[in-house]
């Protein structure tokens, strides 16, 4: 299947970098600070640009132990981090500046490359500020390796979670994953069985007060299946899917119809907004949920997520999985 002659079609736009291939087309925005379009087999997978995740919705145990209060900076960082730097590399050559006008006047509609990489560096509004860089390495067959690099700082409070969030335009009908059964966390995964699991719909665990839920630790792959698009010209009603795979290490993920902030804001399940979209978050690191009590005792220290050291994680998005 591998066509070694296959090349990425590179479109040096005025505000974006387009990358095209047989069954995919990606648009990386300079303006919006992230990947704006991920078209696979004609279907759009992005509603808004992917972003770094620094928050998970407060659990009852988090609230009781004061964790969310102590770590509230990360809530703001999750909502309001901004992209401050973008670097584009084509076939190993890094541009000194973004290839926009007038620099891009030298290109044509016939530009090709074997590998393109674009990295976005986000600055947090924590005190002190820190950074997270998300790099998309796109291979000639469209496979994207996403690498995230978090810069640690020992003046920052513990993190609730660290990940990359993909907001998809419509609600998924199911997802399939290889990993652990049920809802798992670093301190609650011994009872899970390993296997391949399909979850219908996007269930939100109905805790009385909506909170962090639906985490899947130690995953090797997750495939999201949708059967609706927002595209008025798309009349096919066949389900379609997209697969995220492990790169150098297993990952954790959550696939829910809500962002952490939406969950955070509701006091009852019925107050959650009508579900329109899919929020797939791939996590590189997760804090435990704890369980000793719900009024003061913290999660055991070995399950804390310290922000003092750099954290790296990666995963792949593969448009070619059948």
């Amino acid at each position: 299947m591998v066509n070694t002659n296959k090349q990425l079609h590179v479109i040096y736009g005025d505000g974006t970098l387009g990358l095209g291939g047989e069954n995919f087309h990606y648009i990386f925005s300079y303006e919006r600070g992230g990947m704006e379009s991920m078209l696979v087999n004609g279907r759009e997978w992005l509603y808004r640009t992917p972003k770094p995740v620094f928050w998970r919705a407060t659990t009852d145990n988090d609230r009781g132990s004061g964790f969310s209060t102590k770590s509230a900076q990360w809530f703001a960082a999750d909502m309001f981090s901004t992209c401050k730097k973008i670097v584009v590399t084509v076939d190993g050559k890094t541009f000194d500046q973004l290839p926009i006008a007038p620099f891009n006047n030298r290109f044509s509609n016939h530009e090709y490359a074997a590998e393109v990489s674009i990295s976005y560096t986000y600055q947090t509004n924590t005190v002190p500020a820190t950074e997270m860089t998300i790099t998309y390495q796109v291979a000639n067959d469209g496979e994207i390796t996403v690498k995230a690099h978090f810069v640690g700082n020992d003046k920052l409070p513990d993190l609730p979670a660290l990940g990359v969030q993909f907001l998809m335009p419509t609600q998924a009908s199911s997802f399939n994953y290889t990993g652990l059964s049920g809802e798992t966390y670093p301190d609650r995964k011994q009872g899970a069985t390993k296997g391949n699991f399909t979850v219908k719909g996007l269930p939100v665990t109905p805790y009385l007060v909506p909170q962090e839920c639906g985490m899947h630790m130690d995953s090797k792959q997750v495939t999201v299946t949708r059967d609706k698009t927002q595209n008025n010209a798309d009349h096919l009603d066949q389900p379609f899917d997209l697969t995220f795979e492990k790169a150098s290490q297993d990952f954790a993920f959550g696939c829910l119809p809500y962002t952490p902030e939406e969950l955070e804001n509701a006091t009852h399940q019925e107050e959650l907004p009508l579900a329109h979209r899919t929020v797939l978050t791939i996590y590189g690191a997760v804090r435990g949920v704890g369980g000793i009590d719900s009024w003061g005792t913290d999660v055991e220290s070995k399950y804390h997520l310290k922000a003092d050291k750099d954290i790296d994680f990666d995963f792949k998005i593969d448009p070619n999985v059948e």
Partner: protein
Amino acid sequence: MQADLNWLDDPEVFRVNQLPAHSDHYFYADSNEIGHQSSLVKSLNGNWRFRFSKSPQDRPENFYQPNFDSSTFDDIKVPGHIELAGYGQIQYINTWYPWEGKIFRRPAYTLNSDRIIPGTFSQAKDNTVGSYLKKFTLPESFQNKRVVVQFQGVETAFYVWLNGEFVGYAEDSFTPSEFNLTDKLVSGENILAVEVFKRSTASYLEDQDMFRFSGIFRDVNLLGLPEVHVEDLDLKPVVNDDFKSGKLDVSLELTGKDLSGATAELSIIDPNDDVITTKSMAAGETTTFDTIDFSKVDLWSPDTPTLYHIAVTIKGQNGQTLEVVPYQFGFRKVELRNDKVIYVNNKRLIINGVNRHEWSATRGRAITLDDMKADIKTMQANNINADRTCHYPDQIPWYYLCDQNGIYLMAENNLESHGTWQKMGTVEPSVNVPGDNPHWLKAVLDRARSNYHLFKNHVSIIFWSLGNESFAGSDIAEMNKYYKQHDQTRLTHYEGVFHKPELKDQISDVESRMYEQPENIEKYLQNDPKKPFLDCEYMHDMGNSIGGMNSYNDLIDKYPMYQGGFIWDFIDQALLVHDNISGRDVLRYGGDFDERHSDYEFSGDGLMFADRTEKPAMQEVKYYYGQHK
């Protein structure tokens, strides 16, 4: 005797004309009835006439009189909570009393006051009243029998009249109350009147972390007692030291106008349904059979919940059967040995337990047999081998189900006085009851006595628990003493003595703590511990929780004196309510009924959601509880 409203204010009045507590056996007119409806029991469940009043002073005082016009009364379903029928505000509150911030109250006979405080409950704006009326006609099979009315659970204090005459008064919401109606019955239609008060001094003893309800919330039965009736059945099965053989003592308390000429027969049926022993002797008020020896016994345990059966048949002087009483029993030996480790059947005890409130999202604590059976199934499917009946005795069938399905029980008394000693997290026992208070002693001892007599024959019970979070004093020490005097085959449990170390040699066979951190448990176990350790509550499963269970599990392998614990808790307390905005039936928790003070979402700490579906964390519990089955 006339009813007196002031009893509500007096902790020393808690049972008036009530029959003494006795074993929870079923009884039948003949053996063909076993397994079916007994012709000697008539249920009074169903529609009753009902009037709700906001306070004692608003109640229809004369409603019990036969000529009272109740045409303006409503219908209410019994059993059920008054609040869930739409009368009276629903309130969830954890440790404080439900009147916090509304009424200043102190328990009678505290703060150096050697008296009751008149009007505390009898003239209280927050003491709602349910006036219940039920008409009944005695069935044919009850003719010429002594007739008893049995209320299996009424919250919190109630008065009973029959045909206009005062019958009696009872407290202790979670324990059956029985009254003899015989001399007040008329032929044809009888009118039973029950006046239920939401609050009384008993409220101080029933400050459990739960939705606060009132009303007749468990079954009501009429009992038609035969000429000679087994009032109490006392079975004492003992496993011999070889753990292979055993013996059984059987003693009956019989009542009836004339016992002469009557005989009591018993047969013992082994687990294979073979009759292995029969005995017969003349009936007396106390009928004690010679010890029955078993050369070989199959032991009862969670893995093999082997049950034997006994059938007691009372025959009249002409040999006719007057009554048949079947019962199940089992052989198991609970020992606290010199190594300070608890053994059951010669094996170290490991508690893989849960605390279980009786709960249904639609019926509150008025749960059904199907709910109980579902709970047993869930426990078995997840390696849960023990239940603490927090913090009150459960409905009777639960104890039978635990015998049959191999669930250890810590049978807890109906006692929690949290709000009298713990104030915003600090220990401040200046008005603690029962404490050392002589005026509160009789009430709590009565609760211990009722719990013991009702459930003493259940093999699944391995601990008597004195209560929950009531601090500690000489009154609770007396409760402990009561159990020690009456039962050598089980251990006692009480956590609150933690706050009064000087009473540790008088209260509780185990060191019990709640929500203790694993490292502190380890400190206790490494520091010349005097008693084996149990977590009576641990792994607080509120919302998304149950992380780090391995730290407790590790202690089991490391320390023989660590004997496991009971997760808090089994099922969320939340109520199914229709939400007009979303158009959905949704689960609501504390504070959702405009009630204040409330403790809000703390009502939901279960391994199951309130609709009895399992939370995701259950797979973790199943795993760890499967490690030391």
